[in-house]
């Protein structure tokens, strides 16, 4: 199987099939990373498109210096940061609304954890991830979706390895506590 880097280089030379393969591999994880961050399906679709458009526009200048996934998620993260700066008010409103929802959901979850069944666990998982603080959630989602290493997540989020490790530890601790009956 061709590596992501090889496919991207082939696409840069004009190979459409290489792009199709790349897109099929990464569209889901990138989309979910964005969705976990912005929490709005429509906005996530819009930003997801923008990420891939940026990648296409920059294809000619692409050099396989780093892992392709790091490069791709770096574009996504930068776009989210830019979007966050432009829409602080809107995001805050959405975030506040979600935090309220999460609080309600979390209390409901706590009540029902005793009789949780597998299907409920999936719902619990989604709610628990959403309830994580943004930086912990971003680190956790990048780890889950992209299978990124600590170094890659640090690179994507312009942070450092130890900070990421610490964020992941907190996220996992919180999730394990909330999902203790499911694990």
């Amino acid at each position, binding site marked *: 199987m061709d590596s992501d880097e090889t496919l991207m280089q082939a696409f840069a030379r004009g190979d459409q099939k290489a792009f199709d393969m790349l*897109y099929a591999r990464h569209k889901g994880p990138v989309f979910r990373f964005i969705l976990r961050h912005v929490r709005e399906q429509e906005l996530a679709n819009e930003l997801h498109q923008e990420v891939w458009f940026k990648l296409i526009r920059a294809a000619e200048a692409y050099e396989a210096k780093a892992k392709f996934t790091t490069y791709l998620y770096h574009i996504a993260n930068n776009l989210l940061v830019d979007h966050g700066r432009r829409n602080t008010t809107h995001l805050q409103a959405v975030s506040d609304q979600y935090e309220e929802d999460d609080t309600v959901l979390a209390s409901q979850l706590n009540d029902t954890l005793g009789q949780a069944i597998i299907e409920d666990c999936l719902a619990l998982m989604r709610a628990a991830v959403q309830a994580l603080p943004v930086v912990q959630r971003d680190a956790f989602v990048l780890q889950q979706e992209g299978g990124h290493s600590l170094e890659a997540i640090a690179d994507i989020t312009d942070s450092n390895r130890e900070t990421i490790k610490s964020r992941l530890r907190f996220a996992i601790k919180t999730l394990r506590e909330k999902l203790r009956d499911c694990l």
Partner: protein
Amino acid sequence: MTQQNNTPDWQDDDLTKLYRHAHQEQPEAESDQAILNAAQKYCEKPSRKSLSTSWAVPLATAASLVLVANLVWFNYDWQSKELPKFEEEHFTSTAKSDVQELAEHKKAPAPQRRENLAATRQREEQPLLKEFSKEKRSFAKQRLHQNNTPEPMTSQLAAPSKSQVVSEGLADTYGMDRAVNNFYVQHLANQYQVVDGRHFISADINRDGLADWVGLMMQKEGSIDLLAIISQRQTHQYMVLDKNVVIQEQLKHSDVRLSMDIYNSKKTALPVLILTLPNKITFRYYWNGRQFDKDE
């Protein structure tokens, strides 16, 4: 489900499984289509890289052809018009006989050619070797004599003759400041070359005929400043005394090659290449884009 023991605490396989079951959202089909269309458009248009190549290749070929045509024409023109005149003016009888000898040499069979070559080499090298050894012996003797002679008093130092002094002003400066610079000037007497109106290089030759040190100096108002010195004594040590002098490179070789860059007030480099050979120093320097060679 329980967490595996060998998993680090920032990973959790059980959580990962649950997370992946719980999160399977995909972008909308419309969004997929828009992205794939954009990629297709990119693939259909000729890339800038190939575009530049498509122009660059014919352009470079055309330029090369013009250049070659010019060179051929120039060569033909020069050979037909100028070469006979040049040969008439510059070919000495020795050179002409060399050409004749070469032609004869080419005609001879291979073993004969080898013998001819060996004989020619011996004939040419022997006088040079003799001359060289004689010169080296006399030089070593002279240096030995100098070393055995007590150091002259500063006031007794002989000023260099006019012929040794390239710059009139330098001689004056030298005379004025010899008390201060006596160490350098006594070595300067025979071996220095002027790099430009103000800078000059000096070297001291040791008994082996190699340069012990090479110094770069500058004539300043009423004094001579030593700007940098490269010493052979301790494995090519050098010392830069002025921030405008950069020692560019030092190459160890059977001969010694040293190189310095002097920077003028406008911070323009004046590269100076100093080549020392046994019993001989060659200074090569560049000034205003012109190359100068001086042999001593």
